[in-house]
């Protein structure tokens, strides 16, 4: 059997890094444990090299293992996203994990395993590969959420996430088993042709299978009404893990959902289209309304990430209820996903540093942070206004792409979704702006000294990368639209 080694080189590099971290953790004395983080960063950086080589090569699509593993431009863009997000999360973990007596080597091992799982998801075109990828992405996170063993809230976070995660996996697997049962195939393209013309008697089973798959993935991306685990888990988990949960694992869940419904079930858009519409509308509305009432910054970001998941779904859901321009809708959703990942990671890095400066996660406790630490205050404003979608920050381009795609879809249902999104964008502005207002316009508590010590170098690097990306993409969105084009070209052929 011929294997295109370049195509799976990123996965191999990450896998070797995982084993390297494990070996290094065995021999390093405690004061040098942070070298495992260095190894993880080096590994994730090296894994980008084959991605660039593949993007530059003339081969459009690399299909492996009889078509069950496909590396195309869509997969390349998302693998790049997962690697960069993993890289930023490792960077923001370094000082956080080191500051307490956590198990550093094991922490990075689990984080890298989850990154490996998301790389697999981006290329999976087969139920088995996809399911294993989903397992590898979420499995390590159950344990990472409970990494602060002595903290009861962290234990609760882990347990809630685990029980609901296992339940959702069971539902997902059930749906996949029914899909296999009714089509007799595991590969997505074969499932699609097998389901193109099912007998009328099999219709209810196909519908039920799609419903189960949709519900299973909705848990993974914490879309309303399957979101109730998210706020408690986000609050209790160590903050870098929360950042990872709200960005990478959510993105991986979305990618798995999109690949399944778009490649395998495209002809049954009449069943899952309305489902996506409802998930998008509910997530935006309920996520935003709940976010308005939060006083804790991490819970605020938890509900905001639920709402953002709704915004992300809007273009694709609008295209699916309209039944046309699916590829354009999906491309817009991917653009939103990538921009959201960058700005949300930045927001979480601000939360880590802000909590260290002020010693609290309460938004009111952040009063006057802009005067205590002006640089951090500016960054907080940048990321939160970007999440709200204010030009010239990256978030506006994400929102612009979203509305353009939703309106282009044209049908009444698609337009009404765009209207719901517009109302929600205004609501969201209120609570994002409130953070900036507290940081800049509220009086600092008496006796607060201007901060002198700089943030840890790794955290500063995370903040820098995310801030530069947020501003550059906002000012020159054309740089970024190229990625969206890549997605569109590829999926249109798929």
């Amino acid at each position, binding site marked *: 059997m011929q294997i295109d080694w370049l195509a799976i080189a990123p996965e191999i590099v990450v896998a070797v890094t995982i084993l390297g971290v*494990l070996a290094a953790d065995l021999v390093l*004395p405690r004061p040098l444990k942070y070298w495992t983080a260095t190894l993880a960063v080096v590994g994730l950086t090296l894994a980008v090299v084959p991605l660039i080589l593949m993007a530059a090569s003339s081969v459009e699509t690399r299909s492996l*293992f*009889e078509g069950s*593993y496909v590396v195309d431009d869509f997969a390349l863009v998302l693998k790049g996203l997962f690697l960069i997000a993993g890289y930023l999360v490792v960077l923001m973990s370094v000082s956080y994990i080191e500051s307490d007596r956590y198990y550093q080597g*094991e922490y990075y091992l689990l984080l890298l395993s989850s990154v490996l799982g998301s790389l697999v998801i981006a290329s999976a075109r087969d139920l088995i590969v996809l399911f294993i990828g989903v*397992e590898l992405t979420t499995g*390590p996170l159950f*344990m990472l959420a409970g990494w602060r063993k002595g903290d009861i809230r962290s234990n609760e976070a882990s347990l809630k996430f685990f029980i609901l995660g296992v339940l959702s996996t069971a539902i997902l697997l059930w749906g996949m088993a029914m899909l296999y049962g009714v089509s007799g195939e595991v590969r997505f393209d074969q499932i699609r042709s097998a389901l193109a013309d099912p007998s009328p*008697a099999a219709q209810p089973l196909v519908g039920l299978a799609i419903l189960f798959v949709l519900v299973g993935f909705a848990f993974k991306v914490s879309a309303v009404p399957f979101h109730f685990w998210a706020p408690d888990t986000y609050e209790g988990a160590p903050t870098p893990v929360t950042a990872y949960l709200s960005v990478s694992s959510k993105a991986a869940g979305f990618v798995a959902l999109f690949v399944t419904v778009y490649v395998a079930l495209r002809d049954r858009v009449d069943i899952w289209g309305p489902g996506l519409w409802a998930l998008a509308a509910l997530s935006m509305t309920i996520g935003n309304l709940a976010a308005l009432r939060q006083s804790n910054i991490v819970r605020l970001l938890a509900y905001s990430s639920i709402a953002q998941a709704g915004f992300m779904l809007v273009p694709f859901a609008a295209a699916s209820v309209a039944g046309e321009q699916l590829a354009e809708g999906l491309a817009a959703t991917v653009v939103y996903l990538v921009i959201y990942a960058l700005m949300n990671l930045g927001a979480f890095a601000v939360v880590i540093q802000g909590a260290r400066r002020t010693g609290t996660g309460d938004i009111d406790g952040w009063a006057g942070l802009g005067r205590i630490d002006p640089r951090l205050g500016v960054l907080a404003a940048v990321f939160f206004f970007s999440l709200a979608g204010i030009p010239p920050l990256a978030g506006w381009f994400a929102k612009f792409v979203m509305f353009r795609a939703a309106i282009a879809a044209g049908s009444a249902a698609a337009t009404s979704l765009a209207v719901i999104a517009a109302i929600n964008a205004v609501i969201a502005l209120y609570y994002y702006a409130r953070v900036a207002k507290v940081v800049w316009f509220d009086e600092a508590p008496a006796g607060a000294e201007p901060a002198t010590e700089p943030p840890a170098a790794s955290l500063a690097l995370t903040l820098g990368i995310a801030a530069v990306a947020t501003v550059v993409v906002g000012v020159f969105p054309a740089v970024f639209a190229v990625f969206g084009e890549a997605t569109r070209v590829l999926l249109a052929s798929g």
Partner: protein
Amino acid sequence: MSFSDWISQPVNWVFLGLALAVLAAGFRVVTSQNVVHAALFLVATLAGVAGLFVLLSAEFVAWVLVLVYIGAVVVLFLFGIMITRAPTGQDVGLDNRRARPVAAVVSLGLFGVLSWTSVRAFQDTAVAGVGERTPTDILGEALLGRFVFPFEVVGFVLLAALIGGITLARRDLTPKEEEERGAV
């Protein structure tokens, strides 16, 4: 096919016996008030399911179920219950009596929907390959050929579960104990 035709075939008697045994054992797993009994009923359930797989000529899956699930997973359950300080005796809260009506409605509803759709979709279709043997070499070749990639990835799932599980389950040393043992 009418019921009298169906019941006249001896293989269906075996099926009916196994299916009822699985159902009864499964029911006891969730209603038992003793966690050790629940684990033992789980053994009976899994053994019955293994028997159903044999009826479908899937001996390999049947033996995997016996060796891995009964032989390893349930035994691990029992070890886990006995080694930790979890209560092993009667525990009246274990069967969650208050949630029974809800559980009954949900499971009966799910059963109705699933069986209706499945029966409607498949009706009398024969399962392909029943009565033939499954040569293990074909399975091996598939695992290390077409499915080698997910096969290797599963290795990482297990590695992550192992490392994470040990890390979370082990008792942390207090700073004093650590000093005594020397920093590692």
